[in-house]
């Protein structure tokens, strides 16, 4: 019963986002389309984090590193394409590009690679030490980006035009929204497939008790590392889309506030709930828009809501709507 209801709510959330954007398009409200696009992008970032945090119990406070890395990959490649310069010339010549089809795989691969490097070191720890190490890595990259004048340093890097996708005018808000929406669907399907696979079950088992999984022949470190790498790749993709949305990327995408926001999407929506990040991101952005219009201290209300969710509804928004505890909460 609960699962059926949750499936229905998930469908309403997913289709609702599409309908909201289409209605905004019909009413000629590009701002609402942009908001819906932001929801889709932040949801993808949240889906990435949810895989590590929700299903793997890896409380990463450094996912901004992957989000920012994806963002900077898009920005740097587009910037070089715009200026018609090489990104690097050794050992091979690498030109810039403003094709999304080229940028996405590079961004996903490099973000996943960064996740691998960070994961190999940080996953040897757990608990508060894991939180602090992931945060430290993200902050290192943040300060590096600030002090890297070649790509704008603290001022950031504008890309002026949105990267291109064959057959679509990506500058048209609804068309760019549709790209992000399709990626949201792909991310959800990928996450669902992972969670229900043997690997995903082992990951959830690892979260519940590492000793138990080792005694049945599963290497918990390897399982967590693979999950962290996939998580980093998905979050990196979200960063790429975010750069395209803003046509600008700055070091703030690497900041701990970004990591915190992605975590808020997951917690608000429901930890280890497949559509939790979508619910969380939608609620967050709606609050930002509605309460932000009334008071500049809207985050006070967000904080109170977060306190309420953490204390009384560990299943997050999805948990409240399904009136039941999820299997993984």
């Amino acid at each position: 019963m609960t699962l059926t209801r949750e499936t229905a709510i998930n469908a309403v959330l997913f289709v609702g986002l599409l309908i909201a954007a289409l209605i905004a398009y019909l009413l000629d409200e590009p701002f609402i389309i942009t908001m819906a696009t932001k929801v889709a992008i932040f949801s993808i970032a949240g889906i990435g984090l949810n895989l590590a945090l929700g299903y793997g119990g890896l409380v990463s406070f450094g996912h901004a590193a992957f989000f920012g890395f994806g963002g900077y990959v898009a920005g740097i490649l587009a910037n070089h394409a715009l200026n018609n310069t090489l990104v690097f010339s050794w050992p091979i010549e690498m030109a810039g590009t403003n094709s999304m089809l080229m940028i996405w795989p590079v961004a996903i691969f490099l973000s996943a690679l960064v996740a691998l490097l960070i994961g190999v070191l940080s996953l040897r720890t757990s608990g508060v030490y894991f939180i602090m190490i992931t945060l430290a890595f993200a902050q290192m990259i943040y300060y590096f980006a600030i002090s890297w004048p070649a790509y704008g340093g603290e001022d950031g890097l504008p890309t002026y035009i949105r990267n291109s996708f064959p057959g679509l005018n990506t500058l048209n808000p609804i068309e760019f929204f549709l790209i992000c929406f399709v990626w949201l669907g792909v991310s959800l399907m990928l996450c669902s497939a992972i969670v229900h696979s043997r690997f995903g079950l082992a990951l959830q088992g690892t979260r519940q008790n590492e000793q138990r999984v080792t005694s049945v022949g599963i290497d918990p470190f390897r399982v967590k590392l693979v999950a962290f790498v996939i998580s980093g790749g998905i979050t990196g993709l979200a960063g790429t889309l975010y750069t395209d949305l803003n046509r600008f990327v700055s070091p703030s995408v690497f900041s701990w506030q970004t990591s915190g926001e992605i975590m808020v999407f997951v917690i608000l929506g429901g930890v280890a709930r497949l559509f939790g990040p979508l619910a969380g991101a939608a609620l967050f952005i709606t609050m930002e828009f509605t309460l932000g219009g009334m008071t500049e201290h809207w985050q006070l209300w967000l904080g109170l809501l977060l306190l309420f969710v953490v204390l009384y509804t560990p299943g997050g928004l999805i948990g409240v709507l399904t009136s039941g505890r999820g299997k993984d909460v």
Partner: protein
Amino acid sequence: MNPLLSLKDVTAFYGVSQALFGVNITLNQGEVVALMGRNGMGKTTTIHTICRLLPHSDGIITFKGTDISTLPSYKIAQMGVGLVPEGRRCFPNLTVKENLIATARKGEWELMSVIDLFPRLGEREGQFANTLSGGEQQMLAIGRALMTNPTLLILDEATEGLAPVVRQEIWAAVSTLKHAGLSILIVDKSLKELLRIADKCVLLEKGESVWAGVAKELTPALCDRYLGV
């Protein structure tokens, strides 16, 4: 013929406290060996040491002729040591089916054969493990270990705290596994059932193996002295 599992003069510590003072066990392929002793004599510690959930400090532990005493526990499990731990310890927030699939490795044992052994698991397939009765959780714990397709199954207090009827079901399953040729190292409090099913017994006293032999040779005097029965 090399024994399947061999422990020679194995010692182990919890911090600075020595728990095992010299355990010797020889288990051949297809045998059921009962590890016996009163509470606190080191039975579970011995099992944890075999699976390297507790590192040993001295002695040699071999499995299939390979020294496993320094391997990480997941590698030991991958080599074919399937542990059913004391207290069942299923993954509470996974369903019965998910618990079984999560640990599956290729081999003779798969979902359907486990359900054939424990039909109740088939009836509870979609239920979360933490909603099962103690007996069903125990069946799940055994099923989960079988899904790893072990060469050696280690059962630590598999019938502890269960209703007599459920215990009989577990013993019947263990008997089926024995007749299927699976090697088993078993710890349990039910002496009568252990003696019925075990080929050999090893008695532990204060962390040391003090007697080993064929189950039929376990005399009342030995039982009285080392088991208190």
